[in-house]
């Protein structure tokens, strides 16, 4: 056995207590940091996969839209499968295929010019989303006679009298290929129209205005579908027009690395699909958000790791400081031994090698054991907190990064242990200049901390942006730890004058205990600073971490509130808006009080400055948000000025003297209108030939409009139309009539100098009747036939109509009402008719377009708008400045009401907020027919919001975003749960390290003053008073350290927390984070740590301050 081993074993025997203390420090610190390493590992791939597994299928699905081009469908599908499955690699997945066959002509119906058309299709939604009315679903492609088995829409069967068994002869459009379809059943499609988005008729089963191929859409016919067939019926060559292959990967429990591989593969998916389809003569494209979803998760992961790493580094600093204290304990215990061994001839190198060997053994044991204990600690942490709720738990075994982290921490601590021994062993010159060296080190540290803080504030976050997105900056992430350490060093320097003040006071005291404590602090200041430093670091780390956690949580919630903009939003509204409005309100029929649903326009738009009448600057893109500003309580997101104040006047006309229309306007339509039968007449003066394309706006209670259109109305040819009114809910009103005017031959007509270029074009609506849905009429012909007998007359002359005529971008005068004339048809205008008479440049309409609009409200004028700072800067806009907004098919004049940094639902970028009703009216006045409904926004109590959102989403087959759910995910989702876990762990870790550190410090102090304490006892000092003195001495150190730590924690919270709090994608949060510093909690943390520190000192003092030993007093040795 070598001498080193002998010495080490001897130490183990004789210095068991002190070695155990050092080992505990090493072990505890390594375990804590190992737990952090677990956090980092688990928030890697596991968290990303857990997060992605939670997102809707639509966010991860790959959809290939394949144009089979009459080639072999089976071959095209096989090629598509190869391309998609190779993208997903090892990820398991589900796959669905929609097949839409080519359009076939049905037999021509007598009295019609064009044959109706229909298409066979196979869809995975059936039979679940279909009601079998009669017969059965096809169980094979064709019958024995070679006829295609089809299940037809019930409405088609009714129209054409088909029943089960009917054989329908069909032929290809424009071709000679013929086939026979056998009706095996009839069905009705169920579910939302949006769920049928991949169906050619979007689930409507019938389109009465399907363009006749080759007519450019000017001629239409009836289209029917889907004619449901068995999937294999469409696998032959020339049968399929389009295929949708929808592949949804299963990301929960995906093999390690599969996600990364899939993300890489996504880059080439389109190329592989194109190449594969090219080989079989088909073409196609890929629709997917999987790449964006993965990237977003990875970005959020990087952001999450910032918090964990930052607080982890704070703990490393604290742990190292504690280790240095423990090293001091060891050094003092071995001072006599070192002198003895040196006196017996041991060289400095031998002593150092002994210290290294001892430290290495300690580090090796800690590195070997700590990972397993860290695993247990992490498992408990996961079970008790948000990690478990987020689906995260300890991985099997010990991941390599945890081993590495524990080994690194143990090594750092071992080095901390060796450094004092190194110094003692041989560096007498360093000892001589220790004060100078320390001052220099402190100065360097403070300078470093200053630079780190400057860099951190300059960069705005401990992240750098590279081609792969945001990533941790190893230098910047160390910043907070450096700043903390630098501030602690400065605080220690500031403690010295306080200690000197206490020294002066002690001299003037008559007692012994308190003055002795003050003298120990002031005159053994260097030794005392270890204790104070530990307390400073612990308190600052704990209070800062708590403030960081509170600030981070608040900011995440603020960001979510602003990003969502309201309690629930359902985006991606498709289909007929009036019907969608009815469906949405139907599901909210039993909603609790406080629930308010509103339609919202949320879309890209273009805005620009109006230079002059008819002259406009070039526009630029913005996000246009149009909400009901009479319900400002629906708007969420922290703002300096309440949204209710900001949007208060947005709904009012710019001209304060202008008449204001509040409440419903227009002509009420009785009952539940299904058909609007109206006779229309158009004319011009001077007379010319031409056509009008009228359309009427029907509006429901929420302000959602549907436009029902007339194919065409030749001038001077009175016609009666039956217009299908989309299904609505509640009373509907006719609020606008608009017509596109196109003239032919007007140039010659107005060439007559006596008439000039201008003339009149008018549109008359008369004899308006409503047929209720209860009547059950299914076709326009039926409606026309029944109108006189069963229709309810509607009088249009009331309703405060105004009109405008627009051509060439200019608004011209128009009149509306029944008083215009004299024109041929006006003489016959019956009571209740509406005549719109506009003035036009007739020549401009010759081959061009004009618009004639009547609306049932006073002209609104410019729409008031809030614009974001980005818009104001880009467009040089400020309050009172006019600009235009192109939204949908109309250009609306607007005026800046105010400039704000952001808008609800639009945290970043150029955006404009207007009142939706005002925008809608402005749009109609500008001849627009866009319903301006893109989303539903719902204000609802938090507890009811998720259920209501789910119901709304089902009704609209769209994605619902619930503010409370997003809030929860933002602070406790798989990718973010690590931050609260880490920050919570910090508080516990600081407590443990304070206990261990103060224990070591107190033990060292008592040990080194053992003789002194014994002498004081011999002089008559009572043991309890000496204990009190020791405790008092540490109380002074702890209180000073706690106050300094509290101040540093507060400073860090104020300065560093806003920098560390970033958005989930690594950018500065919007709204800017508000530092949350909870005085009460900070005091509790500080007081708790201080009390714990004092308690451990008191305990040790009671145990270690023993009765004076005569032998010790006499010999003064280290016995």
């Amino acid at each position, binding site marked *: 056995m070598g001498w080193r081993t002998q010495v080490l074993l001897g130490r183990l025997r004789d210095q068991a207590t002190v070695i155990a203390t050092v080992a505990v420090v090493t072990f505890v610190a390594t375990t804590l940091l190992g737990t952090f390493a677990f956090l980092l590992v688990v928030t890697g791939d596991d968290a990303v996969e857990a997060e992605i597994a939670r997102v809707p299928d639509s966010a991860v699905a790959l959809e290939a839209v394949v144009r089979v081009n009459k080639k072999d469908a089976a071959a095209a599908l096989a090629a598509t499968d190869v391309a998609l499955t190779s993208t997903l690699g090892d990820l398991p997945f589900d796959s669905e295929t929609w097949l839409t066959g080519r359009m076939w002509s049905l037999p021509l119906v007598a009295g019609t010019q064009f044959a109706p058309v229909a298409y066979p299709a196979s869809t995975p939604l059936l039979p679940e989303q279909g009601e079998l009315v009669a017969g059965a679903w096809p169980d094979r492609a064709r019958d024995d006679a070679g006829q295609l088995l089809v299940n037809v829409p019930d409405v088609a069967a009714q129209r054409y009298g088909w029943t089960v068994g009917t054989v329908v002869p069909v032929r290809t459009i424009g071709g000679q290929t013929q086939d026979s379809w056998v009706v095996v059943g009839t069905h009705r499609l169920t579910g939302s129209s949006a769920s049928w988005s991949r169906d050619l008729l979007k689930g409507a089963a019938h389109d009465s205005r399907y363009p006749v191929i080759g007519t450019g859409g000017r001629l239409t016919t009836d289209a029917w579908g889907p004619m449901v067939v068995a999937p294999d019926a469409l696998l032959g060559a020339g049968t399929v027009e389009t295929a949708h292959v929808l592949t949804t990967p299963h990301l929960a429990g995906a093999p390690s690395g599969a996600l990364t591989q899939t993300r890489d593969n996504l880059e080439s998916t389109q190329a592989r699909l194109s190449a594969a389809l090219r080989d079989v003569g088909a073409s196609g494209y890929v629709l997917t958000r999987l790449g964006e979803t993965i990237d977003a998760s990875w970005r959020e992961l990087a952001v999450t790791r910032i918090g964990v790493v930052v607080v982890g580094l704070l703990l490393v600093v604290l742990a190292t400081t504690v280790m240095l204290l423990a090293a001091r304990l060891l050094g003092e215990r071995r001072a006599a031994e070192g002198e003895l061994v040196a006196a017996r001839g041991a060289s400095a190198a031998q002593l150092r090698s002994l210290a290294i060997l001892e430290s290495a053994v300690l580090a090796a044991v800690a590195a070997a054991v700590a990972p397993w204990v860290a695993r247990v600690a992490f498992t408990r942490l996961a079970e008790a907190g948000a990690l478990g709720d987020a689906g995260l738990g300890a991985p099997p075994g010990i991941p390599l990064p945890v081993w590495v982290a524990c080994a690194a921490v143990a090594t750092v601590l071992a080095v901390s242990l060796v450094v004092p021994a190194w110094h003692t062993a041989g560096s007498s010159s360093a000892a001589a200049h220790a004060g100078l060296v320390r001052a220099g080190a402190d100065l360097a540290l403070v300078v470093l901390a200053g630079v780190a803080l400057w860099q951190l504030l300059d960069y705005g976050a401990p992240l750098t942006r590279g081609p792969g997105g945001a990533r941790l900056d190893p230098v910047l992430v160390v910043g907070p730890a450096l700043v903390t350490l630098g501030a602690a060093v400065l605080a220690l320097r500031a403690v010295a004058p306080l200690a000197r003040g206490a020294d002066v006071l002690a*001299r*003037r*005291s*008559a*007692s*012994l205990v308190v*003055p*002795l404590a003050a*003298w*120990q602090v002031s*005159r*053994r200041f260097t030794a005392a600073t270890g204790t104070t430093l530990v307390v400073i670091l612990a308190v600052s780390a704990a209070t800062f971490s708590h403030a960081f956690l509170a600030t981070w949580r608040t900011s995440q919630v603020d960001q979510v509130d602003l990003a969502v903009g309201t309690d629930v939003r359902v985006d991606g509204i498709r289909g007929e808006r009036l019907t969608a409005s009815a469906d949405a309100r139907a599901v909210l029929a039993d909603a609790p009080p406080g629930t308010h649903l509103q339609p919202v326009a949320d879309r890209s738009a273009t805005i620009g400055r109006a230079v002059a009448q008819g002259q406009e600057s070039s526009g630029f893109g913005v996000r246009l948000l149009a909400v009901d500003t009479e319900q400002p309580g629906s708007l969420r997101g922290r703002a300096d000025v309440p949204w209710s104040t900001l949007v208060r006047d947005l709904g009012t006309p710019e001209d304060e003297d202008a008449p204001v229309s509040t409440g419903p306007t227009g002509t009420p339509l009785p009952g539940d209108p299904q058909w609007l039968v109206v006779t229309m007449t158009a004319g011009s003066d001077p007379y010319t030939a031409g056509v009008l394309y009228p359309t009427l706006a029907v509006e429901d209670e929420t302000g959602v409009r549907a436009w029902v259109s007339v194919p065409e109305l030749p001038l001077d040819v009175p016609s009666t139309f039956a217009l299908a009114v989309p299904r609505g809910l509640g009373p509907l009103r006719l609020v606008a009539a608009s017509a596109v005017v196109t003239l032919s031959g007007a140039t010659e007509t107005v060439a007559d100098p006596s008439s000039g270029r201008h003339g009149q074009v008018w549109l008359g609506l008369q004899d308006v009747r409503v047929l209720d849905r209860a009547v059950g009429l299914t076709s326009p012909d039926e409606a026309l036939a029944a109108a006189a007998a069963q229709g309810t007359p509607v009088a249009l002359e009331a309703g405060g109509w105004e009109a405008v005529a627009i051509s060439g971008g200019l608004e011209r005068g128009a009149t509306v009402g029944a008083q215009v004339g004299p024109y041929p048809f006006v003489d016959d205008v019956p009571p209740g008719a509406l005549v719109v008479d506009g003035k036009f440049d007739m020549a401009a309409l010759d081959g061009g377009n004009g618009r004639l609009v009547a609306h049932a409200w006073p002209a609104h004028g410019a729409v008031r708008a809030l614009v974001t700072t980005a818009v104001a800067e880009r467009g040089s806009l400020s309050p009172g400045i006019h600009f235009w907004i192109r939204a949908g098919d109309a250009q609306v004049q607007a005026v800046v009401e105010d400039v704000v940094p952001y808008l609800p639902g639009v945290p970043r970028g150029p955006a404009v907020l207007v009142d939706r009703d005002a925008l809608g009216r402005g749009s109609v006045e500008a001849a627009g027919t866009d319903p301006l409904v893109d989303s539903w926004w719902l204000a609802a109590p938090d507890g009811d919001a998720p259920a209501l959102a789910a119901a709304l989403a089902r009704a609209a087959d769209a994605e619902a975003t619930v503010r409370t759910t997003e809030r929860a995910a933002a602070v406790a989702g798989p990718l973010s749960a690590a931050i609260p876990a880490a920050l919570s762990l910090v508080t516990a870790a600081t407590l443990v390290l304070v206990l261990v550190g103060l224990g070591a410090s107190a033990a060292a102090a008592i040990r080194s003053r053992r*003789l*002194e304490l014994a*002498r*004081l*006892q*011999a*002089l*008559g*000092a*009572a*043991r309890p008073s000496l204990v009190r003195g020791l405790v008092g001495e540490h109380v002074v150190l702890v209180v000073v350290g706690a106050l300094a730590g509290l101040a540093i924690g507060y400073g860090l919270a104020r300065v560093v927390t806003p920098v560390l709090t970033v958005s989930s994608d690594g950018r500065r949060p919007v709204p800017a984070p508000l530092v949350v510093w909870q005085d009460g909690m900070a005091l509790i943390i500080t007081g708790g740590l201080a009390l714990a520190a004092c308690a451990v000192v008191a305990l040790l003092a009671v145990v270690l301050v023993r*009765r*004076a*030993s*005569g*032998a010790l*007093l*006499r*010999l*003064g040795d280290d016995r």
Partner: protein
Amino acid sequence: MTATTTARQDAGRAADGPLVLVEGVGRTYGSGHAAVHALQDVSLQVAPGEMVALVGRSGSGKTTLLNTIGGLDRPDTGRVVVAGREVSSLDERGLVSLRRDVVAFVFQTFGLVPVLTAAENVGVPLRMLRTPVAQREARVELLLDLVGLGAHAKQRPGQLSGGQQQRVAIARALANSPRLLIADEPTGQLDSETGRAVMALIRAVVEAEGMTAIVSTHDPVMVALADRVVHLADGRLVDA
């Protein structure tokens, strides 16, 4: 000297009995074969104002006897009475009282608190008694002058020589006017000349303060200065 301490000394002398009474004291460390009999049936009386030199070879039991008398150790057998208090049965509070009011120690290793100045060290016993600041400072000044270190009041032990440190320790021992001074090898770490000076100082202050002193020593000078010499060998009194 204060009126209080003078009255206390007078009362002690008036009792006309021994200040220190040691009867049949035995003290054994360890047990079995490893047992060390440090004291065996030691009996001793020290009269008030007497200065006793305790001599014997190293390991003879001098320190154990002094510690037993001063209450730093407890005898296994017998009893120790100091100023009428049975030390061997005193509780912690009683021992503290004994050390504050009756007994003072001078150690071989001086026993000064390193962070305190000479004056502060001397003032420690007075602080234990919560002596008013002005009174304490006057007493400290007097004592430092007595031991010839008035000019070194603000120096810390590390700045003083061994002899000076021991003189500070003596001044501290005298601070609260003890009736019994126990000095364990007070010159053990001093050179002979300094040792002699310290011994002379002890003799002088014992006489000046009217104290009783028990001093363990190897120093023949000290032995010569003592009123009586007590020999210890292997834990037994050889000549009392």
